[in-house]
């Protein structure tokens, strides 16, 4: 068996459920590989370390991958994990916000400077939000909203933060990006560096195939899949993760190949709205398995 190291984008959560299913069901070993799962210290780490060959595979986001490519990091997207945006512009209910333009003149928070602030700006341009004040809230989303320091936050996942907020007794409402003019994109993808792809092509393909199988299993046996995940990640909060899983299920990838057109559209959008400054050729970025 060949060993692969996989770095997540964040600490383990239900978004990564198919990975744990593949691990627990033995799909990886069926394909002759052994996978070590590692948590990063920062979302950018996964891309850096994959590009430098210090990990074989990494979970990342399509927008950040495009940014990395424009910065000259050579990486390849090898498979999708979650195929639609989970990121939202989120706010509390009963704030009288019906349309994005209701946020004109308000304070809008965002989670990751350099990424979400640009997305927010694009969103505002497209949806005619005027004279808003952007505020970097980091990951203190709920306190910022509850204490009325901001009226909405760009960046929370509709499948995750909403559940946490509900647990604390707050109901979240949100605008889904792809419904409000931002091109659809693949939220979570697997990437790897060119060297790993060349040296371990067989093993990585095995990983993709195993994951494909896990996605099918997750779709067909959702309760068992969740149980497998919870036993693999004991520190997870059961009730919260269960609810989050219900919300995430529809977005898991159905096929193990990327939608090149979607990537192209988002890359064009990124260039147009200043997320990147140099054009990225998505064909070089996506690895297609034959």
């Amino acid at each position, binding site marked *: 068996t060949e060993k692969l190291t996989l770095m997540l984008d964040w600490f383990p959560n239900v978004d990564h459920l198919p990975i744990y299913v593949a691990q627990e069901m033995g799909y990886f070993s069926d394909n002759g590989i052994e996978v070590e799962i590692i948590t990063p210290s920062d979302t950018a780490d996964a891309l850096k370390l994959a590009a430098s060959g210090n990990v074989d595979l990494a979970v990342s986001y399509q927008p950040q991958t495009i940014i990395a490519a424009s910065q000259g990091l050579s990486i390849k997207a090898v498979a999708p994990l979650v195929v639609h945006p989970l990121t939202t512009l989120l706010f509390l209910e009963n704030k009288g916000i019906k349309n994005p333009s209701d946020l004109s003149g308000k304070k809008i928070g965002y989670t990751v400077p350099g990424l979400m602030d640009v997305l927010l700006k694009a969103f505002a341009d497209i949806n005619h939000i005027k004279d808003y004040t952007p505020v970097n809230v980091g*990951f203190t989303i709920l306190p910022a909203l509850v204490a009325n320091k901001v009226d909405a936050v760009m960046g929370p996942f509709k499948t995750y933060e909403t559940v946490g907020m509900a647990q604390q007794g707050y109901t979240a409402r949100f605008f889904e990006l792809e419904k409000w003019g931002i091109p659809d994109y693949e939220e979570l993808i697997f990437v790897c560096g060119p060297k790993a792809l060349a040296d371990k092509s067989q093993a990585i393909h095995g990983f993709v195939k195993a994951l494909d199988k896990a996605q099918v299993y997750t779709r067909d046996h959702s309760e068992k899949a969740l149980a497998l995940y919870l036993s693999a990640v004991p520190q997870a909060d059961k009730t919260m993760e269960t609810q989050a899983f219900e919300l995430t299920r529809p977005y898991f990838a159905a096929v193990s190949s990327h939608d090149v057109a979607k990537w192209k559209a988002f890359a064009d959008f990124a260039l147009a709205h200043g997320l990147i400054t140099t054009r990225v050729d998505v064909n070089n970025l996506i690895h297609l398995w034959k």
Partner: protein
Amino acid sequence: MRPSNYLSPALVAVILVLWEGAVRLMEIPVFILPPPSTIVVTAVGRASLILPHAAITFAEIILGILLALGTAIPLATVMFAKPPLEKALSPFLVASQAIPVFALAPLLVVWLGYGIASKVFMAWIIIFFPITVSLLSGLKNCDPEYRVLFRLMGASFYDTFMLLYWPWALPQFFAGLRVGVSVATIGAVIGEWVGAQQGLGFLMIQSNARLQVDLVFAVILWLSAMGLVMWSLVGILEKKMIKWKPI
């Protein structure tokens, strides 16, 4: 017990009561600041979850402190013995304190992997600095009249160091060590941002992202307790080693 001895527990009680009262009266949500009662309940009730993580972190802290001692003492000695070296090295020492963990993390992963080494390294960077600076200052503080005495006796640097400089610098060394062991806790936690699978830092980040703020603070309570234990140990060690002081 003299009345003044009641002050310490009384003050602790007052602060805790004020905190509890403030949280309850001002209706501060638990996910912003849990009341101390909740924190204690969680810290004790979830001890079985916390303890295994605490063991890992404790090991990192101890290793970090040992490594810091093992580098700070020779470093301060060398910089004391050779002032040009001090001049040359201090910019790097000061600079080392300006590096945030996310800048260093990928490098640590590349060089030290995901094991305990990279966590200990982060802790080390944070701990060794106050010890080095304090020890160096203590060594420099040595009364020149005594130095002259040792020169008159024809003492080598080694002899002078062992018999004069080191005992002289001990009080300042311990002040540095006190700071060192106190920041060691956060040092290890920060270290655990570098690809940890366990440890209190790991547990905290996860709990925080899951909005289990009571658990976050319970972990902080455990960390503080660890810091306090080490702080007290340093105090005991100091008393043992500086017996000649009539304080």
